[in-house]
């Protein structure tokens, strides 16, 4: 008996967000995928969701979902889950969907597994794969009956094609509770960042506390530039104010999946490891031979980051010129 898997589709600039479509594809693989789409562009976008895997789409086209955060979506989705009781609610990990998941799990007493890279059903048991720390991968599950929530890691799944699928559209009869129109968005600002984005870079050179001071971060940037990559940072140095949040690698910062990750002066806090562990090759440089980062590195160098970095940048340039 096919499981019904729900996906809340986020809208970005009047279109379905890529991250939501990736999750929809996974839902279609798990069972019967149904989408929920809330927002002023919902009606236009709903019919396009069949080809990404949706067999049914619940639609509520209302601008309040765009302008007021979290609560209207939690109200509508919460009531819908109670009414239909799907097996699973599958959500991409984004700022808004995390907020919705946190409130929904508390409101409807739903199981909640975060940071999943894969999931599958074994009869009625949902096996959720969650990488943990340096060298563990955990299989978790919802331990109670009722709809459970799983939040999936960015880029865990590819977008799927279901060219011949047409989704059944159901317009919701939801009314927005005025009591829930509390968090109003006054303005949205796009910030242009320089250089390749961390999420897309195939080479990332990251720096941590071992660099000593903010002024030394340029050594990281120079190596990144020499390798044609992006520069990243740990939460520790972002918290210390050396760099803006956009550089942070780690769970709420960014999850990255480059071919090469070079960690410089980084001890390897769990949350940082979770953010970069998916890298194909990891090189780590740290003064402390016991640093947790060495548990995930393919090549670890125990030594002084400030000495090695410029030497390495020089050597890289030399070999590339050959």
């Amino acid at each position, binding site marked *: 008996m096919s499981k019904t898997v729900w996906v809340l589709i986020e809208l970005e600039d009047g279109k379905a967000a890529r991250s939501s479509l990736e999750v929809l594809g996974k839902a279609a693989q798990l069972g019967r995928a149904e989408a929920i789409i809330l927002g002023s562009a919902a009606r236009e976008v709903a019919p396009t969701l069949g080809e990404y895997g949706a067999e049914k789409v619940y639609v509520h086209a209302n601008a309040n979902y765009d302008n007021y955060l*979290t609560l209207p979506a939690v109200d509508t989705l919460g009531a819908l889950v109670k009414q239909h009781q799907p097996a699973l609610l599958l959500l991409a990990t984004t*700022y808004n969907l*995390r*907020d919705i998941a*946190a*409130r929904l*799990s*508390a409101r409807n*007493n739903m*199981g*909640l*597994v*975060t*940071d999943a890279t894969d999931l599958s059903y074994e009869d009625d*048991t949902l096996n959720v794969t969650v990488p943990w*720390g340096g*060298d*563990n*991968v*955990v*299989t*978790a*599950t919802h331990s109670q009956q009722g709809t*459970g929530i799983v939040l999936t890691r960015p880029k865990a799944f590819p977008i799927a094609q279901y060219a011949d699928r047409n989704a059944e559209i159901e317009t919701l009869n939801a009314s927005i509770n005025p009591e829930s129109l*509390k*968090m109003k*968005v*006054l*303005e*949205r*600002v796009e*910030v242009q960042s320089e250089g390749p984005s961390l999420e897309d870079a195939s080479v990332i050179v990251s720096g941590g506390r071992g660099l000593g001071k903010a002024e030394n971060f340029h050594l990281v940037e120079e190596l990144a530039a020499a*390798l044609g990559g992006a520069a990243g940072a740990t939460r520790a140095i*972002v*918290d*210390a*104010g050396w760099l803006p*949040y956009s550089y942070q690698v780690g769970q*709420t*910062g960014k999850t990255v999946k480059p071919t*090469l990750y070079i960690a410089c002066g980084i001890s390897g*806090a*769990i*949350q940082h490891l979770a953010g970069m562990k998916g890298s194909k*090759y*990891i*090189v780590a*440089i740290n003064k402390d031979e016991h640093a*947790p980062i060495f548990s995930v*590195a393919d*090549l*670890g*160098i*125990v030594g002084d980051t400030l000495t*090695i970095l410029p*030497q*390495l940048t*020089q050597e*890289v340039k030399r*070999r590339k010129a050959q």
Partner: protein
Amino acid sequence: MKMFVCVKQIPDPNTVISRLDPNTKRLVRTGVSLVLDPGDESTISAAIKLRDTIGNSELTAISMGPTSVQEGLRRALAMGADRAILITDPALGGSDAPGTARVLAAAIKKEEADLIYCSTESTDGYTGMVPGGIAEFLGIPQLTFAREITVEGNKAIAKCVTQTGYQTVESPLPAVVTIASGSFEAIYPTMKGIMSAKKKPFVQYSLADLGIDPAQVGEAGARERVLIIGKVEARAAGQVIKDDGNAAQAIADFLQRYQLL
């Protein structure tokens, strides 16, 4: 204003390779050095800054955990929080995020809180689900990933991080706010702060004090379970070498071998 900041005591992320106990399937928290979650230092500092800007306000640091959590709360007091609340009970072991949120919300609900600060996530569990849970159990809004926050009358206005930049969000109080990493500089406790911390009120609650049914929290109340703790396939020959002047060559050789140059 009555303000709260939620803090957590965790295995030191800089020295401890966190482990999952294969028997209990929980994070090992005993026999390792516990420190105030480094992310919370920034959050506590943000709360203190706003308290001092607004004036005539009180900041309570609150934490849930075993009795060893005192050091983290004492550090919060030394940094400048006015009082501390510790919720501790044997039944709380193995709580999931919603269970933790339920407990913290119950303690906060005993008072008329205006603004509740949390970090966006903890450094060890990093689900990021507790602040939203607290907000839901209290029936109030949450402003998440705030880089800046001001209070005007009975409203909070915050600049909150988004995928592509930030958005300015307004909410009535009371509300929960989560502070994005790197937004506020951490305050270092002074000697004076450390001394005065010893005289500040420190309250301890058990589950009975909060009227919470133990079946709803701890491992008993958790709605998720770890089935298997597996090891990932070993990465091919991870080696660690000491630099004796050859590090740059060794790394460059590695990069060339795997066609990364």
